[in-house]
């Protein structure tokens, strides 16, 4: 539901930066969304496109990459992905928030919570 507000911030940030760089056309925007965020990539893309309408980014290519979720276990020092149960009955993936190696829950997320504008490509005036 909050994809709209995140997308709005993306649109604002991109247009501000393009203005600062005296761009007259934005060719592409590259975004990275972490797997462990609550953001749906399709919705983000839809709202960004909506936000870009009528601006110099209207025709920009929007590239959204999903970033893998990586954790670090403070108990056994495991570094890597979480165990994910794929349950066909629910059509969703259910992650287990404990260390795949030692099964303890002293984990911290080191990657996968980003909503990042990686780079934009512009044409200058």
């Amino acid at each position, binding site marked *: 539901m909050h994809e709209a507000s995140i997308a709005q911030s993306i649109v604002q940030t991109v247009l501000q930066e393009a203005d600062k760089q005296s761009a007259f056309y934005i060719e592409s925007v590259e975004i990275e969304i972490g797997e462990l965020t609550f953001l749906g990539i399709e919705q983000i893309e839809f709202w960004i496109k909506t936000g870009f309408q009528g601006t110099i980014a209207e025709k920009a290519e929007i590239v959204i990459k999903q970033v893998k979720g990586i954790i670090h276990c403070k108990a056994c020092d495991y570094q890597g992905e979480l165990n994910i149960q794929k349950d066909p009955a629910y059509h*969703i993936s259910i992650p287990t928030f404990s260390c795949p190696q030692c099964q303890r829950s002293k984990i911290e997320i080191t990657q996968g919570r980003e909503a990042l504008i990686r780079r934009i490509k*512009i044409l*200058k005036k």
Partner: protein
Amino acid sequence: MKIVKPGKNETFDIELEEDLLKQNRVLAEKNRIRFDQYHVHAIDVLGSIGSGKTTIIGQVVKELKGRYRIAAIAGDLTTTIDAARIQDKGAIVIQANTGKECHLDANLVLKALNELNLEDLDLVLIENVGNLICPGEFPLGAHQRMVVVSTTEGPYMIVKHPYILLESSVLVINKIDLAQAMEVDIHQLREDALNIKPDLKVVFANGRRGEGIQDLIEALNLSGE
């Protein structure tokens, strides 16, 4: 020396690396430092609309008001109904209206903290906006996060929203008196939750009657002082 410059109409790559969720995390960290400075314990309370967050908070306040100096921050879109209900139980309440937003964020909590005298408090309960998805994205700086789900939301609440348990330490399964009528197996709900987060503390409660509130206080490590 040869100088190479991009000509007119040439494409420029601009590395932005701007993380839009990071701003909130930085503010949340500030809130945490502020709580710690005044030795105030803060709990973020999440749950769907109608899961019983306000009732549970009200019962916790009623039970603990002799032992702790308590304030609550009540998140809501526009009304002050919940704030009044918690105030009636004996806590200082700050209303944080989000307008149209579906979650509280660290900035709104920071604003609410400016309205509180933290030196006169021991415990701050933050009631998030009724929603099991969006608030998960926005840490507020609280020390603990507790989730309230109720049997009236049906049997699949936990498996459908695994991510909300990510940073939660306590789960309240509320309205257990209605489980039978709803044909919901509360032990299955508990098992679903423990599959996702093995060290989660799960409490069964009937908020309206105050059942399970002692267990909850223990699960929150608030029975000590």
